[in-house]
């Protein structure tokens, strides 16, 4: 009978080596699966956090920017469909030539102030813009951002000034 020492010095048989390789590859695959899921989970969390941060920032900017829109009493009423991707508003700071545009593009939600200054929120690429209507007059905008999990965040903002006279009645 072989001694214990002799057995250790002989090395591994082919079957032992194959079994060892199989166990190692199984372990590696499990580690890969776990690591992949963890990486995906952390990435998902990062995206969700970025979405909330950008939505909150955009919400503040919308409220400030729309507050600067002041329609004079002679301006005609705005006409915006129930849900659109793009809106251009005149009378930024009461000036007819100054405009404020906002649109949902493939690159994200874009706010363009006066065709020079613009900001793009990359994660807010999905959503729509709807008017807030009071007594047949549009008093503000409701910008809805839709997250990847289909959660809707409604950011409502009112204009700083709205027409006092309804032009339809005035004519």
């Amino acid at each position, binding site marked *: 009978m072989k001694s214990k020492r002799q057995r250790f010095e002989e090395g591994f048989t082919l079957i032992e080596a194959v079994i060892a390789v199989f166990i190692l590859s199984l372990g590696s695959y499990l580690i890969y699966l776990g690591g992949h899921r963890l990486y995906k989970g952390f990435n998902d*969390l990062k995206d969700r956090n970025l979405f909330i941060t950008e939505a909150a920032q955009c919400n503040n900017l919308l409220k400030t920017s729309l507050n600067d829109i002041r329609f004079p009493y002679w301006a005609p009423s705005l006409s915006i469909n129930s849900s659109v991707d793009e809106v251009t508003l005149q009378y930024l700071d009461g000036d007819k030539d100054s405009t404020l545009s906002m649109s949902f593009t493939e690159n994200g939600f874009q706010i363009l102030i006066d065709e020079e200054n613009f900001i793009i929120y990359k994660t807010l690429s999905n959503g729509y813009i709807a008017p807030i209507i009071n007594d047949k007059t549009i008093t503000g905008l409701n910008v809805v951002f839709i997250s990847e999990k289909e959660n809707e965040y409604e950011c409502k903002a009112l204009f700083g000034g709205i027409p006092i006279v309804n032009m339809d009645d005035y004519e």
Partner: protein
Amino acid sequence: MKLRKRDQKNNKYTEGYVLLEALISIIILSIFMSSIAGLYSSMTKNTIKAETAFAEYLNTYNENIDSRKFLFYEE
């Protein structure tokens, strides 16, 4: 259960207990993995908290806007 002792040689790296070392490494790995799981769950909780807080803030603000009355004409 009897711990199997490694083949005795005059080399200090081959001495010791195999099972004990395996158990210790498994315990260390478990602690490491549970700390990562704890970190992940706390991050998820924080994200859900932030999402809920933002949604609640928007709801309150929107209710305020909806309840506002506009007087377009002089009565």
